[in-house]
């Protein structure tokens, strides 16, 4: 059975409480088929709990789940046959070989891809006979993606697939996810890298404290900040007094480490004022970047906090 209205997964008023902690507090969303839906949020926002419920690891306290057009109380065995799951913190038996792991997981599904095909999809053909314990972090993560794809799933969960990977391994993982997009798989992704969400996602929902605080395409979310422009420069020597002066040139100013951010709705005027201020004070505006707002800025404007705080 498939979704009849183009929606692969619909969640309504989903709740999961651990004592007084509201890990998931009444969230609702719908994921169109063949799209990448990203749940963005800081650690502890409720992303992983939401995914664990939708993967069938946890049972929700309340709410409705409709998957592949069927309403279920919790994810059951029949649904799992069509899911592919990359867990955030899953591991493999270190004394098994790569091929053995793929064969093992393939045996759990009624229909599975050939082992060689799975390894090809995640570029691990050369490592088929290697023990798990000898793989690098990136190779293990690719294997985990391969295992998630072993049943050629209709709905794929990727829970923080690039966390802990080096930049090269992260790019490789993006390439794997892009390939899945091209195969028109429905993907649910969680991440706290806004760049990753922007590059890979069709839809984004931002979670904080167990609730969804914003939802839409990356472009729609960024548009919430209006016609703002962000001017960034390296300003390690800028103190609070100078930040006050800069704030009068734009809509808002903040400093994060060495970087100073100036938000403005009138880029030309703000830029002229800042250059004049720079000449007068003798402070160079090094490494200056002018850009449009991104999801990080959206999150900041909604919560007053950075995603990775």
């Amino acid at each position, binding site marked *: 059975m498939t979704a009849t209205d183009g929606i692969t997964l619909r969640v309504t008023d989903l709740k999961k409480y*651990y004592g007084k902690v509201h890990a998931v507090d009444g969230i609702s969303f719908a994921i169109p088929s063949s799209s990448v839906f990203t749940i963005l949020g800081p650690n502890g926002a409720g992303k992983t709990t939401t995914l664990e419920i939708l993967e069938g690891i946890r049972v929700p306290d309340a709410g409705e789940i409709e998957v592949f057009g069927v309403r279920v109380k919790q994810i059951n*065995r029949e649904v*799992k*046959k069509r899911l592919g799951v990359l867990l955030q*913190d*899953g591991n493999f038996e270190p*004394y098994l070989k790569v091929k053995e792991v793929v064969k*093992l997981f393939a045996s*759990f599904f009624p229909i599975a891809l050939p082992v060689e095909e799975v390894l090809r999809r995640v570029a691990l053909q050369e490592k088929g006979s290697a023990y798990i314990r000898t793989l690098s972090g990136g190779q293990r993560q690719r294997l985990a993606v391969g295992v998630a794809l072993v049943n050629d799933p209709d709905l794929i969960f990727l829970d923080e697939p690039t966390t802990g990977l080096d930049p090269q391994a992260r790019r490789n993982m993006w390439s794997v996810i892009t390939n899945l997009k091209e195969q028109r798989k429905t993907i649910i992704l969680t991440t706290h890298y806004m760049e990753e969400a922007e590059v890979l996602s069709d839809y984004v929902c931002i979670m904080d404290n167990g609730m969804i605080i914003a939802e839409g395409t990356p472009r729609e979310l960024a548009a919430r900040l209006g016609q703002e422009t962000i001017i960034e420069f390296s300003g390690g020597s800028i103190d609070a007094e100078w930040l006050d002066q800069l704030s009068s040139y734009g809509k808002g100013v903040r400093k994060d480490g060495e970087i100073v951010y100036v938000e403005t709705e009138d880029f030309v005027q703000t830029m002229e004022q800042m250059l004049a201020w720079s000449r007068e004070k003798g402070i160079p505006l090094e490494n200056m970047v002018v850009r449009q707002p991104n999801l990080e800025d959206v999150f900041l404007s909604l919560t007053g906090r950075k995603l990775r705080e």
Partner: protein
Amino acid sequence: MKGILRVAEAHLRTALREKITLFWFLIFPLFLLAILTLIFGNMGTEGEISFAIAVVNLETDTAGPVDFAGIIEGVFEQAGKPSEEGKEPLFAISSPASGEALEDFLASEKKATRFGDRAAVIVIPEGFNQCLLHRMMEDGPSSSANCSLAIYVNEGSAASGMATSIIDQILAGVERDLLTRMGRFQEQKAIPTETLWVGSSGTEVRYVDFLLPGIVLMGFFVNGLFGVPGSILFARDKRVLRRYWVTPLTVTHYLAGFSVGHLMLCLVQFALLLLLGRFAFGATVTFFQPMSILFLLLAAITFLAFGFFVASVAKTANTGMAIANILNMPMMFLGGLFFPVTGLPLVLKAIVFLNPLTYLAKGLRVSVGTEAGTLSVSIIAVPLVWIAVCVAVASWRLSWDVER
């Protein structure tokens, strides 16, 4: 079904590839079998028990018709020689050093006996030949001569007691032989005896045959007690199991696969122990009969259930190993695996009584014929009760995912 077999295969492969597992489940039982058999394997066989004694012949009159003193001295000298090449003699006879006075030798041997270095010192007195001849010919000792052999022993020494008994038997045999040769032995006056055999040489249960079933059970026990919670709790704590739970594999499927893998590991263990026992230590005990196979299977399942129990009461893999260690020693040594368990204080008797190993060891040994007795209902019922209790506790308490 395919998934169950793959889980079994994965469990077996993991166990056989992990060095620490391999050591405790396979190498250690093999090592223990080798060590215990080498230490205790020859106990009770011919020639192994040997007594250090001395024979001091003070008789100087050897010119008479019969040198009884010389004959007795010769008999003991003979007993001091090995009956077959490579066998220990019954007695290790010490002799005076060249030129050493007999009185000095006697004094030093008595001292050695007092300190436990000699089991006995036999002294043939002067005038013994004449006295004994007179006694044998005239039915009574001469009043003036000394016909008694003096045997000095250490009262507190078990070796002295055993040596005295053997010396008495040898002397009785010598006397009977001498009287027969002299035509003075009256058969009808001797106490009639009849020798009845309950076995012939080689049919007694050898230690390795007694030990091998115990070592097999120990292997199963260690495998279950440590291997099962170790594997499950490690897989749970390291989030290996989580990956299974997001697939259609259910806990029941996983348990079935894990159990099959565990039984396969027990089979490998059993085969290796059997081969070593048979070809390295000459064990002849055979397990290939229905009751023995039943007990082997019952043992493997009992300890598998025990492992589930330990996994269910431990929060982490480390706690599981600690609990297993606490249970290991008392259960193993009070289960009669290596030695018969008898004459224990009440508390230890209770452990023996409740210990499933006691019943499984008894059942397996009776079924393979290395222990006397019958297979009562309790021998099977007690392990079955343990299985039921352990499985019930595990079903109730065992958590299959990390706690949040």
